[in-house]
Structures are given as structure tokens and as C-alpha cells.
């Protein structure tokens, strides 16, 4: 049962790995440049899924402060400085991500049971299991700095009772998607140019022509003839 749980609990990894391997295999085995790019895309997509899945929890909401947050005058300062981003990124995320029971690869909280009331369960390995820490952190910072921070600490404490999805991986992968698009565009553009220059986008024919250009002899004489002499 443990094994099944282990496997099922990490199904997002399996999807990611399978997709990645399919993509890589296409890159390895396909001889057509366009298909190679398709494989490359699949390969990159698997990484997108990986990133998205590690940041997502079922029942989690977007990282927007919920509840009574009154200190409007200090909103920007408070938000930007610590209460949310810092608290989440440094303490909550770090400790939360790593499973308490010492399993190497944390199972994803997609499958973990999330209590309906929003009160985080102490055992579930979610991103936001540490409201106490967050509250303490916020309170600790607030005290002795500025009285207006009291309200911030208050808000953070309330916020901690809501389950947030970690936005950072999603933001990161947005960047990666942009990069992926650029790569695909450039790859396809190159394929077009190759087609113009060589008249083909089949890799073995390209290789035969390059080989001929470099060494002056056909790469595979018998094959070259059988195919009507690509070189």
C-alpha cells in the first residue's frame, strides 16, 4: 500500500517524467527538423507542468490578502516589505515544502486532504502549513518597529488561515514559456532557412550534403545511390 501511495501521491512527477521522455525521444529519433522542434516543445512543456504542479495546492487561492485589512495608508509599504512575500517565501515555503516525515520527494498536496474549514492540517505537506510561524514572524517584525505594523501582523495572521497557492513557480514558468516560444520561433525560422538553402529538412539528407561538402565523398555511397544521390 505504501508503494501505491508513494506512486499515486506523486502522480504529477510521473506525468512530468513521461512527457519529458517522450519529448526527448522524439528529439533523438526523428529525422525531420520540424518534428525535432515538436519534440523539443513537448520536452519544454513537461517542465512547465512540473513547475506549475509544485506550486499548486487544491483549495488554494490566489495570493491576495483576504479579510479585514484596514491600514490602507500603509498598504503598499507593508505588502512590499514583509508580511506576505517574505513570510511566505522564506519561512513558510521553505519548511513547508520539505516533508516532515523525511520522505525524500514530497508528495504533492494535490492529493493531500485539505480540511474544509481552511484550518491547515499539521501533517499535510502543504506549502502553507505553518500559520504559527508566519504569525510569529510577522508579529516579531512588527513589534518595536512601528505601531502601524500591528495591523499588518493582524492581517498576516488572518491571511495565514487561508490557503494560498505559491505564485512564484507560476511566475517563473511564465518567463520560461516566453523563452520557449522564442526558441520555437527561432527554430522554425531556421528550418525555413535550411529548406531554402538545402531544399530539404530531413536530417540524414542534410548530413549527407554536409558530409559531401566537407570531405568530398558521399557519406553512404550505396544509400546515396539508392536515394538518387542526395549529395
Amino acid at each position: 500500500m505504501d508503494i501505491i501511495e508513494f506512486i499515486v501521491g506523486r502522480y504529477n512527477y510521473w506525468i512530468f517524467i513521461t512527457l519529458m521522455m517522450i519529448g526527448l525521444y522524439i528529439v533523438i529519433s526523428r529525422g525531420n527538423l520540424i518534428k525535432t522542434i515538436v519534440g523539443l516543445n513537448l520536452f519544454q512543456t513537461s517542465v512547465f507542468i512540473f513547475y506549475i504542479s509544485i506550486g499548486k495546492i487544491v483549495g488554494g487561492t490566489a495570493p491576495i490578502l483576504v479579510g479585514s485589512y484596514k491600514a490602507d495608508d500603509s498598504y503598499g509599504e507593508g505588502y512590499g516589505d514583509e508580511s506576505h512575500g517574505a513570510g511566505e517565501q522564506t519561512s513558510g515555503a521553505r519548511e513547508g515544502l520539505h516533508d516532515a516525515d523525511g520522505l525524500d520527494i514530497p508528495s504533492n498536496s494535490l492529493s493531500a486532504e485539505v480540511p474544509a474549514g481552511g484550518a491547515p492540517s499539521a501533517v499535510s505537506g502543504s506549502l502553507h502549513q505553518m500559520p504559527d510561524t508566519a504569525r510569529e514572524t510577522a508579529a516579531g517584525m512588527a513589534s518595536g518597529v512601528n505601531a502601524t505594523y500591528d495591523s499588518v501582523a493582524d492581517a498576516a495572521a488572518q491571511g495565514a488561515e487561508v490557503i494560498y497557492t505559491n505564485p512564484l513557480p507560476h511566475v517563473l514558468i511564465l518567463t520560461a514559456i516566453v523563452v520557449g516560444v522564442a526558441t520555437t520561433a527561432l527554430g522554425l525560422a531556421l528550418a525555413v532557412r535550411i529548406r531554402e538553402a538545402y531544399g530539404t529538412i530531413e536530417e540524414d539528407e542534410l548530413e549527407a550534403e554536409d558530409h559531401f561538402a566537407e570531405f568530398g565523398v558521399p557519406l553512404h555511397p550505396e544509400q546515396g545511390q539508392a536515394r538518387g544521390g542526395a549529395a
Partner: protein
Amino acid sequence: MSDLLAGLIQNPGMLLIVAGVIVALLPGRQLRAIAALAAIIGCYALLASYGTAPMDAPVLMGESTLFGLDLVSIRIDRLSVVFATLFFIAAGLNAIYGWLHASRMEASMGLIYAGAAIGGVLAGDLLTLFIFWELAALSSVFIVWGGGTHAAFKAGMRYLVIQVGSGMALMAGVALTVAATGETAFTAMSLTAEDGSLNIAALLIFIGFGVKAGFPLLHFWLPDAYPRASAVGAVMLSAFTTKMAIYALARGFPGEDILMLIGAVMAVAFIFFGAAASDLRRVLAYSLNSQLGFMVCGIGIGSELAINGAVAHAFASVIYKGMLFMAMGAVLTRAGTLRAAHLSGLYRAMPLTALVAFIGALTITGVPLFAGFVTKSMTISAAGYYEHMLVWLALIAATVGAVNNIGVRIFHDTFMGARSDAAKVSGDAPLPMLIAMALAAAICLVVGIQPTLLWSMLPFDYDYAAYTMDHLITQMQLILFAVLLFALARRFGLAARPRDGVLLDVDWLYRVPGRIALAGVVRGTAAAWHRLWWGIQAGVARLVKGLYDTHGPEGALARSWPVGFMALFTAVVLGLMLIVTFVAY
């Protein structure tokens, strides 16, 4: 700029190197030759201004640091000064000899080469020595290439590899020394550490020196490269590299016992090769190697007399060997060939060159009144005094070898006898060549007649009387009876010239089986590689085909364009990394 450059530029050798670069830019052979000679004289004047100093109290100049290591650009003591003076004389003779015939490359590289040799013997620390060691190696390669033939190119490549290899051994040894002690000073070392174990650093340095000194089995570059150079180039080559190594051995390993054995083997083994070789400059090269054995023996004995003998013999050897190479160069210039089989009777057309060759033969065999007599006697006496009988016998044998190789082969067979077709040449050597040869011959005579002139320059004050009756009688007996035997053998048809062709040496090992093995390995690796890659592809394809029937025949089997290959390789590397990571501990 740093004080390193300031230190280096005080070294006359460095200045000569700079002069070499400038000479490369001058137009016209005459102008280049004049500039070269002026530079040599100027730099010698600089050296002379530094004076000299006894062995135990050297004068150090041009101290600087290079990333924390102490460098001493110049060390003046009697050992370094005598070698530097010798190299200046040799450089001057070379410049005169090549007045009309040195190409731009040879004129310039010859100066750089001489400068590197001078800088090397003046260097006060191992790093500076290495700097000049490498410069000498690299500049001399161009002189080998100056031969201009494709064979010269290939020989030059081999020469380059072995010379740079010698440098690398030296560099590794120096690096190890510095890592172990932090000291860079170039002083006497020992191959055995204090606890009796092998001193690896010293051994590496020893090997580095040994390659250039032509130790047996490490010598093959010498007879390989020297005969390929041009007439002018061979003279330059004969002077510097090997003698620089002799200096380094004398400085670093005096009294190292193994040197006696090595020297004895060198002295004897190479006279046989010299007797068997057919190219006359190859004969000279082997003979040079045999003479180096004398010096190596002397350094190995390590007494004051023996070191003096080795240095004195190095001095004489540069002059007379250079003279013989000059004579052969003159023959090459006029007759166009140096194959022994094609030459005889040249004395009719080239009497003066023949005379020079004769003087060279008298000097190298050690006939009294010539330099070789006094310098050889010192080493032989030292071997005798310290009762190294094997060394002593080897040196005697080497003397007889010189009678055959130089007296008979170089002088008699080439210049005497009936005139061969190739010997019908238009005239004697060109004037500058004759002048250079005459000057060299004069030095041989002066040193032979007035040896105290040389002895005053030697490292140690040692009162040695060369002209005693027993030296005269024994030496003359040795030479005359050897000559008699060769003459009788010729008279009765027992001796013949060696066969025409190439003489195999140690280099055969890497030039034939080595090359075949390398080609085999390359081809085998390529084939195995190909098979592996296709095997993987085929395996993967079969697997996939078994799993999905949808896979068409145009699939993975047919292709080998690198993208897939690289991607697969990346995946394999990643997989290995992951496996190793997970299994590692």
C-alpha cells in the same frame, strides 16, 4: 611594467633575442648579417662588462618576482660565463658563415636561438632557465624547417614534439620543486632524496636535461633533425641545444653517478651508428652525440678536474663540430648532396674546405697541438685518477671511433680518392664560409697550443699539464694504430662504405609500429564508436517497434545526424549522473 621585464632585459641573451626580431625586419642578406654580427658583439660587450666571479660566490643580477616566486635573471660565475662566451663565439661564427646563405628566417631565428642559449646558461633560477629553454626549442624548430623540404618539415615536427616534451618535463619538475620547497634557485640537485627514496622533481628535471643532452634512447631527434636542416642551419643547430643541456647538467647534477654510465654508453654506442650511417651530416650528428658522452662522463665523475674537462671539451666541441658542419655545409652548397655513396675526391675542387675538414679531424681525434687533445685528456685523466675503469675504456674507444667517423669517413672518403661525378664542382666554398671555417680552425689551434688561455676561464682553478710525455705517447699510439688498421682494411678491401639509405634508430619504434598502432587505435575506436551508436539506435528502434507497431521503416535506424546523437548523449550523461548520485552513498 614589472621588474621582471627589467630583469630579463639586463640579460645579454634577451637582448640578442630582441635583436633577432629586429633582424627579421631588415631587408637584404648583407644588412641582416652585419646587424647580426653587430648585435652579437654588442651583447658580448655587455656580458664582458659584468666580469666574472668564482663558483662559490656568484654575482646575481636582475632579481624580480613572478607571482610570488623569486627570479634571478642573471647569475655570473665562471661556469655560466664560459658557456655564454662560447655561445657568443659560436653565434659570431654562424653569422659570418651564413653571410650570403642564411635566409631571413635563419638569420633571425639563429640570433634568437643563440640568445636563448646564452640567456639559459646565465639564468639564475629554474623558471628563467625554463623560459629560455623553451625559446631555444621553439626557435631551433624553425631552423630545422629552414631545410625547406617536406622531410625537413616532418623531422621538424618530431623535433618540436621532443623538444617541447623536454620543456614539459623540466616545467613539471620545477613546478614540483616549487610546490615542495617554494624555492626556485637553480643549484646542484640529487636524484635521491635524503631518506634514500627517488627525488621525483629532480628526476623530471634530469629527464628534461637528458633529452636535450642526447641521452641514449632519448637521442633520436638529434640525428633525425640535424641532417635535414640547410647548410647554414645545421651549423647553428650543432652549437647550442646540446651544450646548453651540458651546462644544465654540470650546474644541476655534478657528480651524479648514473651520469658516468649514461655517458659511457653514449660515447661508445653512437660511434657504431656513426660508422653505419650514410648521410655525412648524420655521421657528424652521431659523432657529436658520442662527444657529448665525454662531457656527460666528466660531469658524472664530478671532481674539479672532470668538470673542468667537461666544460673545456664542450668549448672545443662546439668549435670543431661547428667547423666540421661548416665544411659539410660548404660541400652541400657546392655539390648539392651529402650522401657518402656519391662523394669522393673533393679535395681537387675544394682544397681549402678539405684542409678545414682535415684540421677538424685532427682536433676531434685528439692529435697534439689541437684543442681536442688537451680537452679530451682532462676527462680521460679524471676517469683514470678516480679509477672509473669502464668510463676510461669507453672514452678511449670513443676516441678511436672519432678516428673512423671523422678521419676516415668525413675527411678521407669524401675529400680523398678518385673524383666522383658529384664532386665535379665549380669551386671552393664561398668566401664568408671560408672565413668562418678559418676562424674556427684558428681557435682550435690556439687552444691546442696555448691551453692555459682556456683554462683561465674554466670553473675551477686546477693545474693540469696536458703536454706530458705519457699523454703524447699514449694518445699518438691510439690514433696511429687505429689509422693503420683502417688503412690496412681499405688496402685489402675489407672495409666498405656503409650502404646508401636510411639508418634505423630508436625513432623507428614510433615512426613505424607506433604509427601503425596509432592508426589502428584511431580506426578501431571509430569503428567501435560507430557500431556502438548504431547498435544503440538499432536497439532502441527495435524496442520501440516491438512496442508500437506504428513505427515505420524510416525510423531511427536510418539516421545518424548529430542532433539525435547529441541529445541521446545528453540523456545518457544525465542518467549516469542521476544513477551515480543516488548510488554514491
